[in-house]
């Protein structure tokens, strides 16, 4: 029986990135009409949790920090077959950077119970810092491994993992409890089953506010607990003048080869 926690983040739908506009006066994003989705990497972490649960039994607890609207994404995660969901939502959590976010999540997890495995997506689609898994591990005092692309539970105390490093793979055994950041290549995410969807209706999403956690240090959270301060947004423009290569397929192919050949590596 494994107790697995999966960290979930709601992010703007990548499909909407091209319609996200930037307010040049306020220097902020115009979020209107931008739908939120479950961070794609997190679904791979959830899939791993579901596979482990099917194989070894156990419970899957979801945890997220964000506004109350994140219940939608948590409900969706429940429909995949997770057992419980907690949303850490409080206006004083707002403005947290990765250090403060991971602190809040660690306090939430400690409050909820004891976990053998804490899983997270390797990176979020919006911020993409990949900091939270490691920092969560630090706050919890657990070992942590990033970019995990295979994982097996050896016994109750030990997991065997394969980590994707720059151009190679490394295999480790890791003492549990531990935090693992799951890489997208690890598995193929299932569809939530209709049974799962229909039974998610009965599952309650529990909300944790700052007050729910007695030993939460307020100075560590939100804007004041965040060492990094985000400045204004800059629209990145990488425009180049583009020339059309025209002609028959052969002519085009030959033109491209003419550009490739002089610069190919020895």
């Amino acid at each position, binding site marked *: 029986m494994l107790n697995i926690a999966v960290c979930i983040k709601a992010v703007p739908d990548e499909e909407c*990135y091209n319609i996200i506009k930037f307010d040049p006066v306020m220097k902020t*994003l115009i979020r209107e009409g931008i739908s939120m989705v479950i961070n794609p990497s997190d679904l791979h972490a959830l899939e791993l949790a579901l596979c482990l649960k099917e194989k070894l039994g156990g419970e899957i607890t979801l945890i997220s920090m964000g506004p109350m609207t994140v219940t939608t994404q948590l409900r969706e995660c429940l429909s995949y077959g997770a057992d419980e969901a907690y949303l850490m939502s409080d206006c004083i959590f707002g403005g947290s950077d990765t250090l403060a976010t991971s602190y809040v999540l660690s306090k939430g997890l400690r409050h909820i119970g004891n976990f053998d495995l804490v899983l997270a997506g390797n990176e979020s689609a919006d911020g993409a810092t990949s900091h939270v898994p490691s920092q969560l591990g630090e706050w919890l005092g657990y070992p942590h491994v990033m970019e995990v692309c295979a994982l097996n539970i050896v016994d109750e105390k030990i997991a065997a993992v394969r980590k994707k490093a720059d151009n190679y793979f490394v295999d480790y055994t890791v003492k549990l409890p531990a935090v693992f950041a799951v890489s997208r290549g690890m598995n193929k995410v299932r569809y939530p089953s209709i049974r799962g969807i229909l039974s998610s209706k009965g599952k309650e999403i529990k909300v944790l506010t700052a007050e729910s956690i007695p030993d939460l240090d307020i100075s560590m959270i939100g804007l004041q607990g965040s060492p990094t301060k985000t400045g204004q947004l800059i629209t990145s423009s990488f425009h180049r003048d*583009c020339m059309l290569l025209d002609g028959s397929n052969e002519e085009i192919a030959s033109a491209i080869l003419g550009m490739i050949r002089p610069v190919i590596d020895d």
Partner: protein
Amino acid sequence: MEKPDLDKIIVYAEHKKGHLDPSCAELVGKAKELSVKYDDNVVIGAVVLGYEISEVVKDLSQTGVDYIWYTDHPKLTRYNSEYYALALEEAVRFIAPELILIAATSQGSELAPTVGARLKTGVAAHCVDIVADDNGQIVNIVPALGGKFLTEIKIPDVRPMISTVKPSVFVKKDVPANSNVQTVRIESKALDSYESRIWFVAESVKEENEKPIEEANVILCAGMGIVDEENWRKLNELAARLKCAVGYTRPVIDLGVVNNDHNMIGTSGKTIRPQLYVGFGVSGASHHICGMKDSQIILCINSDENADIFRLSDYKVIADCGAILDAMLELTGGLNG
């Protein structure tokens, strides 16, 4: 307003099999550039961790750094995130720099947030630039929303600041070696007594494409418009014949034709700046653009004349990429080799 102090910048020097990682020189170059802004009164140092690393330390002394701090310990024989984080934390506490630059390699991406959490300081991830503003404040420029926008990150109140930079993002500069490099060995007590909870088992080298994609001169990149396994096979065949590297965008992984994401190009993958980038069916999603925009020449083939990628291409071909692949194969030894 008085300039905030910036006395020491240190670069975390990664090395593998006795060789310094190329990212090291890129980071030292950036540190030098920053030091100019502070009237050159900045010590630029490097921290290197490992076991029996005197050769690496010697190489490091040629990179233009003023100081080298190193920890030489059997427990650092190979990378272990717990031992390395412990040693790096210890070194940083000892050195007390204002700014730490770490390459966002697999190793650096783990160490930076870990050490950041231990020092309760901020980490700016995947900087595309690091500058000093008029007030002498360090400003990190980082991608936001998958590279669609850029944003500034400052760490005003806590020291040290940590910045991570993907390999190849900064151009390597020729920094003359300092003839008077100070080398300091840090004796780690903490390492002696700590036992890691992560045990190394084995390492498997990736077989195909031994050379990292970051070092290739020509990269053929597959986008979702590549559509099927057949075209993917053709692209690889063409790359093999021309000795080019092959990269891909994230949707290609989702198509299921590649079995790992080693050579995915983009915000959560590799950053490349080859002499020539040839995109096959690449649409130009912002997270991909972020990883390839610095290519010297960008040529893209897409059947959609309105594809976003054309906006940052030097050359465009509006055609079915399968047909162009066929034509290119035909001209390089025939369709079936």
